């Protein structure tokens, strides 16, 4: 696993003996401040869920009710029939799953070529790879759209899937950093045993870098589940809409149905929150890796 491991560092728990009252006051101030800030970040979530359980009449009560009375569960089934929710969901899942597969498959292979094989020109091309990270997407947006138009892929979900099979500079960079930490002797030993380059990749390197692949899979999932601009540009028929763009249409049509809108938003957020709780370590390690080791 990555060198950065996180623990809540409970070791300091017994150390806060009141050496002097100033120190205690400082600790209290820290807790008050950090709890207040955390509350500010949490209130919108509470408000989201609270509103999602309100009837139109309850929504407009002044001053606002925090706990709906009664709970209007009906918003949830209604918001999934108000729009073709399950179709959008299926489309989103299609885009997301194939992006995860495409990214993991292509980026792991490419990162191998950039880290485990020594070849002339490798470092130059790697600089090119890093440089592409600096290209703002609006620069390539229009020609890429035209390419997909010529390929007949505009207004299909595949326009959002195909690029992932050609690698992603950021993921490749991330995986390469991982691959570099694996001792070269492992590859050499396998080579002496007669393993081909692909066998080394498949049987030696891939199993050792599963945590890094998980980070890539997770990030690919997240960015496609959340993607708005891609579907906005490429999808025009309603039957192809993903959740992001479908919700946007819903939002535009029913600006005052806050209960329904918030329940639909909650349904879209819920998988992400669940995913976070199941993969917290991978998440945090991924963010950290890309953030400070960069």
């Amino acid at each position, binding site marked *: 696993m990555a060198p*950065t491991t996180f623990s809540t560092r*409970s070791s*300091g728990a017994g150390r806060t003996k009141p050496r002097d009252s100033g120190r205690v006051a400082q600790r209290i101030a*820290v807790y008050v*401040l950090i709890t207040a*800030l*955390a509350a500010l970040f*949490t*209130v*919108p979530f509470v*408000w*989201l869920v609270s*509103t999602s359980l309100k009837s139109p009449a309850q929504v*407009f009560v*002044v*001053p606002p009710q925090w706990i709906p009375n009664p709970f209007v569960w009906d918003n949830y089934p209604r918001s999934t029939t108000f729009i073709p929710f399950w179709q959008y969901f299926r489309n989103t899942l299609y885009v997301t799953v194939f992006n995860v597969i495409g990214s993991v498959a*292509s980026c792991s292979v*490419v990162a*191998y*070529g950039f880290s485990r094989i*020594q*070849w002339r*020109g*490798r*470092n130059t*091309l*790697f600089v090119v790879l890093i440089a592409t990270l*600096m*290209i*703002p*997407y*609006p*620069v*390539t*947006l*229009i*020609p890429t759209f*035209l*390419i997909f*138009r010529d390929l007949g892929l505009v207004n299909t979900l595949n326009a959002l899937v195909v690029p992932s099979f*050609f690698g992603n500079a950021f993921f490749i960079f991330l995986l*390469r950093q991982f691959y570099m930490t694996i001792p070269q002797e492992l590859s050499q030993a396998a080579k002496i045993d007669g393993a081909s380059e692909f066998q080394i*990749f498949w049987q030696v390197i891939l199993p050792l870098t599963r945590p890094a692949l998980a980070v890539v899979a997770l990030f690919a999932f*997240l960015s496609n589940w*959340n993607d*708005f*601009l891609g579907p906005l540009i490429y999808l025009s028929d309603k039957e192809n809409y993903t959740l*992001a763009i479908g919700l946007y249409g819903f*939002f535009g049509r029913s600006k005052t149905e806050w209960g329904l*809108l*918030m329940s639909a938003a*909650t349904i879209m*957020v819920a998988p992400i*929150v669940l995913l*976070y709780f199941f993969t*917290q370590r991978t*998440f*945090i390690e991924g963010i950290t890796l890309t*953030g*400070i080791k960069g």
Partner: protein
Amino acid sequence: MASISTRSKPKSQPLKPQARRDLIHGIVFISPWLIGLIVFAAYPLISSLYYSLTNYDILSPPQFVGLRNYIDLFTADPLFYKAVGNTFYYALISIPLNLLIAILIAMLLNTKVRGLSIYRTLFFLPSIVPEIASAMLWAWILNPQFGLANALLKAFGLQSIGWLTDPSWSKPSLILVGLWGFGGSVVIFLAALQDMPRQLYEAAEIDGANTWSKTIFITLPMLTPTIFFNLINGIIGAFQYFTAAYVLTGGQGGPAGSTTFYSLLLYRNAFSYFKMGYASSMAWLLFAAVFVLTLLLFKSSGRWVYYEGGDKN
């Protein structure tokens, strides 16, 4: 940054069989990316430069017009200046504010608070919420009549604010929405803080340094590489700022053009008015601006970014 060693191999000699094999293997392994580089980066880059010199409405073939689009942008398009102004406003306020608050929260979390992972989760979660969902939620919170934000203001006896409907409050509103989603940088700063060598602080304590001077003379300098990284990311992100503004203003960039950001205007020119050439010239100006700013930052980094042991990988 990646370590790039300049191995001075003899370049003119023919490759040995092993080196040849490695070269072929290397190219084969990176070939998916290489194809992607040509199709999705190199070709679009060059062709968008060409399109920027044309009139192109997608339906009829592009007509070459020289620098016309660029000249029009600077001389005949007030919205262009508005969008540049809005984008700089957003970048100049939101980036420093994000950095400041992220560092503050990370420092507070780094004081051995109990329940660290709970706090970290609370700060981090909003950053992974889909932008469409967070935009809908904030549209509701910032609703002038029934929103939570104004209800809070009223509870404290303050005046209501028009938020997204008021041209002078619309950008601050969007900055607020952006602040909610910056938890990623809190996590990054926290990790950087936890990585810091204890000996430095112990040495400073022996010399009688207090919390304040330790922060100023040790913590902040040691954080500069992370600040630098977040700053570059922040600039690139702010220049491409799109989704929240688009969703919250129904794609209009209103009120009174106050949230017409650069990428929003570019998108509208390209995909609403089908002025592909014009939009391409906007894209290249954006590219040039990002390039110059990043270059300047890298050049200046030697003066204020502290790398442990001279050059860190």
